[in-house]
């Protein structure tokens, strides 16, 4: 393989990395813009619905104030509307109903304070702990599996059959790779009449 082709190949590899990074950057930019730059436009109706869906209808079976057709829920929605118009915050309104009907009757998600904070923390801690655990386990496994003197993962591309264009595989002129390819083609031919036909036609 000529040096020129290696350079070309590695540039192509880099190009797809750049394309990927550009797409990710664009995604990040759009999300950042949506999160911070775009003002939250919500109509009063939507706002009422948002607050009401945070509250459980005290006289219903498992329905939120936003969803329930019960009379009490209708009155509660009216109260929410009035209080929002009076300029009170979502949190204040939830607090108001909690003190009026009892926390366990209307608060639909556990408050993030005191004992009920546990409801939130435990699952999050578990997943975070899982990530850390996986990280260490994988590191151990990896450390024990790469023999001394063997090339690191970055230097090897043992999976030539993932590539569609051999031309783009700049470093593919490996003897190991050739071996793998021969093996794969052999197995395919044994397995698949279509490929066998292809092989015989090639001969």
């Amino acid at each position, binding site marked *: 393989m000529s040096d020129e082709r290696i350079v070309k190949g590695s540039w192509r590899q880099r190009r797809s990395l750049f394309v990927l990074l550009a797409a990710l950057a664009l995604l990040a930019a759009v999300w950042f813009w949506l999160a911070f730059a775009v003002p939250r436009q919500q109509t009063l109706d939507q706002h009422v619905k948002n607050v009401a869906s945070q509250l459980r209808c005290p006289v219903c079976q498992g329905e939120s104030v936003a969803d329930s057709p019960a009379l009490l829920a209708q009155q509660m929605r009216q109260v929410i509307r009035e209080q929002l118009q009076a300029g009170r915050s979502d949190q204040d309104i939830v607090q108001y109903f909690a003190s009026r009907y009892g926390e366990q009757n209307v608060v639909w998600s556990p408050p993030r304070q005191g004992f009920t904070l546990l409801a*939130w923390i435990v699952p999050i801690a578990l997943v975070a702990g899982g990530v850390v655990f996986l990280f260490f386990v994988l590191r151990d*496994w990896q450390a024990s599996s790469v023999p001394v003197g063997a090339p690191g993962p970055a230097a090897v591309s043992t999976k030539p059959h993932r590539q569609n264009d051999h031309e783009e595989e700049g470093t593919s002129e490996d003897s190991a790779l050739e071996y793998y390819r021969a093996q794969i083609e052999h197995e395919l031919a044994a397995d698949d009449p279509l490929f066998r036909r292809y092989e015989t036609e090639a001969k």
Partner: protein
Amino acid sequence: MYFSDLGVIALILALGFALYTVVASVLGAVRSAPQLVQSAKRSLLAVTFFLLLASAALVLSFLTHDFGVGYVAQHSSRAMPWYFTTAAFYGGQEGSLLYWALMLSIFSAIFVFTSKRAPAALVPYVMATLMATEAFFVIVLTSVSNPFARSPIIPADGAGLNPLLMDPGMLVHPPMLLMGYMSFALPYAFAVAAMITGNLSSEWLRSIRRWTLAAWTIQTTGLILGAWWAYHVLGWGGYWGWDPVENAALLPWLTATAFLHSTMVQERRGMLKVWNLFLIIASFALSIFGTFEVRSGVISSVHSFAYSDIGEYYLVFLVIVIVFSSALFLWRLPQLRPEQEFDSVISREGVFLLNNLLLIGMTFATLWGTLFPLISAFVRGQTMTVGPPFYNQVVSPLIAVLIVAMGVGPLLAWRRTSRSALWRNLSVPAILAALCAVVLPIFGVIDIAANIGFSVCAFSAGAILYELWRGARVRHSHGEPYLVALYMLFNRYRQRYGGYLVHLGLVLLIVGVIGSHYFQQQRDAVLKPGQDTNIAGYRLTYLGNIDTKESDKETITAQLQVWSNGQLQSYIYPGRITYHNYGDQPASLIPINTFGFTDLYVVLTDWNGAAQATIRIFVNPLVSLVWYGGVLMLIGGVICWWPERRRTLAAARSAAKPDVAVGAGIADGGVVV
């Protein structure tokens, strides 16, 4: 003699044969006496026969309106059409238990008929586990929860079925979901057999995978049908409310999904054996827990139609299952060593581990939220409610990461992946996702969560379709037209491409969920004849109320016209049915008009005489995609499960030997150029 007497006799005989099967198969295995095992097989089929007989007796009791049977009197009436009368079979506690037992025996019989394919050493222990489970149910059925129990006073007519159950959904959803719960018993039986014998061969793995796949597909169907039914019946414009009972059905599904993924690692690399056993045991324990929770009423729920005092029996059974499995597990643990080492984080195995972490995270979060009211009551003496806002905030981010992993996973190879190939394969779906993120705000979607959700779905769908296209292109370059190439891919590599179909279905479903969650519109209107109300480009004109009285019920409907683009689309009749026997539980009639993927969902909430109605209108965009996605997942599941031809199977087996690492990449249809 009544049919119910026949039922009792059949149940007792079934119990006898179930106990005999347990003893005979264990003895047969320990003393290696094939005759005993053969005898156990026949006795298992006898259990199936007697449970079929008992079920037939119950159905006949219903159809002949034998109200001397308490269960029949409580759950049916003469006015009910024959199909609801038949379906009332599983409409209550006792009957649904009988249905459970019946299905377990039928599945066990299917296992016996196909037992030649399973490793012979495991068969007796699988049968013993299944029949021990069966014995538990039949004991409960014959003692505390007997559907055939007769009362001395025979009423003239029965009470009828709960109005919420008088719906076509009743004919399909409960049998599916109960069957789904039950079907986790088979993988569990295989796990127990493997732990006892120490045989965790690739044949064992194949058997347990197929049964789990069947259970998963049934449970998926049950869940989707449940969502569809709730949507059509409950009248709050949604289909999933994170109710404890719904969560209970989701939990085993999540762990089974995790298992189906991590067993691929075991199949390919001989790793994660211990973890896979744990997942199977957890699935079964969670399905028993779900049944216990529904029955016991420990946790209040909307959907419990079968409260009773047999909860504690389930609790005892659950404890037995957990203790027994854990003991076996710990006993076998020292002999379960991975056959191979891990190579790289950026590999298919790595993504499967991430997938498992996320699914287990979701399972735990859901279980924790479901149990938290109990924990709260226990610790500080104050119960509380954990509702959808909690689950939405905790589970949604995990789902988003899972969907990304679903897109990335198929692009990675086993062991390790070349970085450059990865970047190239990732860039196509990433561009799609970026396009989606940019285009959506132009069409007015400025909610950040919805934008992230849609973009993530675009990424994953793009990755899957790109993978399909690449596979088809490879075969096309070998001389097949594209359609034939696509068909051959699905035909030859069922597991892999069936899996892609399931993934695509899930992406569609999530798109539907995002659409109907974030962009639902809702309007309440009090209307007099001739008045109309507008929502999202639709106009509804109210005409008046219609009151229909029948012998067992009274139906009130409002008549409305639906206008769209200045044209009359249809007449709709939202209404309320009140059954005289269940006066406090009216059922809603909810017309749902679908325009494209958007549903117009109208509920009659109140009325006044013949000329005033209060209606509540929901506009649910993209909600149809939830159902289409569900159907796609079902089809994908069936494709994965569908038996392969023997020749392909032999080839796959010889290729799947872990020492030929690269060859193993092909066994599931790795596309090779």
